[in-house]
């Protein structure tokens, strides 16, 4: 009886999410529905990754499903997931994570990694990430290129504060200098910082040539951003639209503060 009611509950969740998920994750949700818990389910449809503490990322060791077209960054032929990507996939049962000793990392341990602040993300940012991902948007950490040829992954890639420009040809030393200066810059001037770059769900996204994002998403902590703060971010990113998000009580809202100029009327 317990199995049947759990089965029905999962079915209901799947039905409500079905209409809003992109194909890859939709298929995954279907598979969860046919496999009552407990999770993880060791079957052929779940991808596997190994969490690497030094990088604060998970290296993907086995890929299943279409989601890898839009998730994970590529360095030297390997794919790595940020904590928010990892958590999202584990929450929907699409990823199985191991630690350095090949021991399964539970969801609880992954939430703990999110909370300890060493992975460059926090709960609010994760809520935003998950909200957009569930609707099918392609979301990447701002300043972290999707793929870089011939370059090994560096520790600190995932530090949210180091707002490196998405330039695939950066020199490693120059990168570090710039990121330290920018870190100070950002901390002194403003609490408003770009968090993610976002692409629309049906764009033909390719990590090798993602193009400009549809918009850059900034998190404004505390209160709404001031004009000075908005302008500081706009100056850096030119033509790409900005949006500001706010998370409270699990509700994610998005606002634009677009500069306009009302025309002179006849």
């Amino acid at each position, binding site marked *: 009886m317990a199995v049947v009611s759990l089965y029905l509950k999962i079915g209901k969740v799947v039905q409500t999410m079905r209409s809003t998920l992109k194909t890859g994750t939709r298929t995954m949700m279907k598979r969860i529905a046919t496999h009552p818990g407990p999770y993880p389910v060791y079957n052929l449809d779940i991808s596997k990754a190994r969490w690497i503490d030094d990088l604060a990322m998970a290296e993907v060791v086995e890929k299943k499903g279409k989601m890898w077209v839009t998730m994970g960054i590529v360095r030297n032929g390997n794919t790595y997931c940020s904590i928010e990507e990892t958590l999202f996939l584990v929450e929907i049962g699409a990823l199985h994570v191991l630690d350095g000793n090949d021991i399964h990392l539970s969801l609880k341990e992954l939430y703990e990694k999110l909370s300890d602040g060493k992975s460059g993300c926090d709960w609010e940012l994760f809520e935003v990430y998950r909200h957009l991902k569930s609707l099918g948007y392609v979301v990447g950490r701002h300043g972290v290129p999707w793929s870089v040829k011939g370059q090994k992954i560096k520790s600190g890639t995932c530090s949210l504060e180091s707002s490196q420009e998405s330039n695939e040809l950066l020199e490693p030393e120059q990168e570090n200098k710039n990121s330290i200066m920018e870190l100070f810059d950002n901390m002194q001037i403003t609490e408003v910082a770009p968090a993610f770059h976002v692409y629309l769900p049906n764009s033909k996204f390719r990590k090798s040539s993602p193009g400009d994002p549809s918009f850059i998403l900034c998190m404004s902590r505390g209160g709404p951003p001031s004009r000075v703060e908005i302008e500081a971010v706009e100056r850096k990113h030119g033509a790409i639209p900005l949006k500001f998000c706010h998370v409270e009580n699990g509700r994610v809202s998005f606002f634009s503060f677009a500069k*306009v100029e009302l025309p002179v009327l006849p």
Partner: protein
Amino acid sequence: MKARWKGKASEAKASADPMSKIVSQLQSSLIDTGTCGLLSSCSVLIEVDDELADLLNRACFGRPRITAQKDKQWFQLDMEETFYLCFSLKCLKVIGEDVSTKSNEELWEYFKSKKPVFPISYKAYSHLRHKNWVVRLGLQYGVDFVAYHHHPALVHSKYAVLALPEGDNDLNGRLRVWSDVHCTVRLCGSVAKTLLIVIVNSNGLGSNSPSCLEHYTVEERTITRWNPEQSREDQRGLQNQTKEGII
């Protein structure tokens, strides 16, 4: 930015009768008649003939007061409207209770004493009026002003306007917390208006005299809420909406 006209005839009517021309006629007529307003608390009362009454109505300055008086009509002007006519258009004089004409400096100080945020709200008001937008007070919508492309009888209002001082705004206190942003945007949306903030920077000049206004700078921004459930399919739609400041 496109106007939402109330019917096809309205758009044609507005084209034939540009607001700049109406305001200019109002200005001339006020000068010719030497009209004087009577200052009474935060309002200014003016007594006008039918021609002026018609111009005031068409240009959307003031509110008519219905009285039993037959030969003339009475209109009541707000502080911003009054100051625009006196200071910017130089077509109206205002008399105080002591029967002397108030200079612009005296009016300025007086209005500031009634409304400390007057310099900011006036700059926003005059900035939009200068561009020939129709601007009326927007208290009933929880904002400072509402702005129309033309007369409200012809067009639905496009913007709900908040005049905000740059930086430290103890004067105004709006939109300082997220709940106020949510509240204001939602309210504007429910009355089909876009929230426009007019950010006025006094550039450290203070507000001792209306001549300071000339050196205030203004920046316009729209605040809109984006719904990710709605914009997923259409890349071009998202770009266009962003360009027009709708989202």
